[in-house]
């Protein structure tokens, strides 16, 4: 089968690889029909996530058809069209039982700091991902969800990560009616978080980024204000000023470890790797939120350590909330939002590329060429 193959930082290709096999009685094999490149895949692509091994296949956003099931799989059957949450979750441990499907205790032997994730380095379990024609899906009784027959596959594939992560980013913000919400990052997750902030009663949603075409996209898609931090002397002062010198009620970090905008963070986090990426967005979020405000983090950072103003978290009485999205928990509500026309996930897709052209797809997304927002890869086995 054809699959993506990571060869080192900024180098990926497709090649023929052995078909995945059932390795556990609750496994399924899924024939992939759509798979995306996630913004967080770029952290792997750029070599920012420790224990990303050459030869791995990335991809944690995918949908497909069940081709084979293990002897203990009962919740899905061969031929079902399923969307597969990016978290690998057993459904039995005390984290899964409490809805924390992103923190499963039985899906990652290599680290306790994160649950298992498809195609997201050995730090996240060493699973091959869905940027391939076929993929092994563990715990097939828990994750895979049958796609409603009337749902567009382009909407379905974005329900595996982008929509739940953006939604949970807003949800973790504890947004109250009338709140001002600032979202850092105008990538797909940031745009979705800004869109979802309205569901919780926000009165004002502001997106901060430095790429003009993305800011324009965010304005149109999420009906929000959007500002380029490169056009301002100090984004924190700017945000204080436009919130009556009070600070935002809620700040959301949708950027993670490859932020721009602070020379020291960039030098220590991206150039010398003295910390787990540049935590500029998180620093700005902490410093821009009001006293007693909430900072929600869904931007991905490496596991080791980051320089952030934790003293300000204490002194301002900030509540810091963060997690990998619990996709399975959110799916029923989000499917309803999509079916009711309140959310338009596929509106984020700007590029559809054959799986064979994955090297160019990664480069287009990484270098933000051709006004790229979201790339969907189509394997040739889709029909």
């Amino acid at each position, binding site marked *: 089968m054809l699959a993506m193959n990571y060869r080192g930082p900024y180098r990926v290709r497709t090649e023929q690889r052995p078909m995945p096999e059932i390795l556990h009685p609750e496994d399924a094999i899924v024939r992939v029909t759509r798979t995306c490149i996630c913004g967080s895949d770029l952290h792997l692509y750029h070599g920012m996530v420790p*224990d990303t091994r050459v030869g791995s296949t990335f991809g944690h956003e995918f949908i497909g058809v069940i081709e084979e099931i293990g002897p203990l799989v009962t919740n899905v059957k061969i031929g079902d069209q399923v969307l597969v949450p990016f978290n690998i979750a057993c459904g039995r441990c*005390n984290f899964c039982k409490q809805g924390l499907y992103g923190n499963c205790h039985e899906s990652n032997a290599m680290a306790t700091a994160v649950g298992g994730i498809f195609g997201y380095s050995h730090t996240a379990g060493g*699973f091959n991902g869905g940027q391939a024609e076929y993929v092994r899906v563990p715990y097939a009784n828990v994750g895979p969800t049958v796609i409603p027959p009337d749902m567009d596959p382009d909407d379905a594939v974005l329900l595996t990560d982008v929509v739940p992560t953006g939604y949970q980013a807003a*949800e973790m913000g504890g947004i109250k009616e009338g709140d001002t919400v600032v979202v850092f990052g105008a990538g797909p997750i940031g745009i979705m978080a800004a869109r979802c902030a309205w569901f919780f009663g926000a009165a004002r949603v502001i997106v901060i980024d430095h790429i003009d075409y993305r800011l324009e996209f965010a304005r149109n898609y999420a009906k929000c204000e959007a500002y380029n931090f490169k056009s301002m002397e100090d984004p924190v002062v700017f945000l204080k000023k436009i919130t009556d010198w009070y600070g935002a009620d809620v700040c959301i970090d949708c950027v993670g470890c490859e932020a721009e905008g602070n020379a020291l963070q960039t030098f220590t986090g991206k150039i010398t790797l003295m910390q787990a990426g540049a935590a500029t967005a998180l620093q700005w979020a902490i410093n821009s939120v009001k006293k007693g405000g909430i900072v929600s983090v869904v931007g991905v950072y490496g596991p080791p350590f980051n320089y952030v103003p934790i003293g300000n978290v204490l002194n301002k009485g900030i509540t810091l909330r963060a997690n990998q999205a619990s996709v399975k928990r959110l799916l029923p509500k989000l499917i309803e939002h999509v079916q009711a026309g309140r959310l338009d996930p596929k509106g984020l897709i700007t590029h559809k590329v054959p799986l064979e052209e994955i090297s160019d797809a990664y480069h287009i997304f990484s270098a933000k060429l051709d006004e790229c927002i979201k790339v969907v890869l189509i394997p040739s086995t889709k029909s």
Partner: protein
Amino acid sequence: METKNFDYKNIPGWGLDIDERNEPTYPMKNYTGDDHKRSDYEKPPKQPVDVEILKSTERPEVSAVFGNASPPSGLSGMIRRYAFKHSEDRYRHWIPLILADRINAWEGIIEDFRSGIIPNIPAERGWKSEMKYNRAELTKKILVTGVISLVLLSYLTRKKR
């Protein structure tokens, strides 16, 4: 102090201020109290361990399922094995892993040649799309690299003379 069989509920005031709504993880977490059962839950069947798995020292055994992509090998594998002797709390876990990743990229190139594959690095880096969408920047990069190379070359050859 042994606390396991200690009847803490007899401490004066125990539990008086319990507030079920004081749960900062809600709604992410549907708090059931099961956390207090720790690792006492119905365990899934185990995936047979038939490849080398580097297990975190912060857990007692391999998780019920695990990925089998790219088992450790070569020099990078040796470094990864060293890293996994240390907990996720330690620099000596993560920094060797980053080093191993960089070495692994070179091992990948050697492996390609051994398998008769000449890696097309420009193609792997997506230069076709760079040509299509960012030609001016690419031309600038090539020109700058060319000029620097020429300057270096002429400096080195002058020194030899």
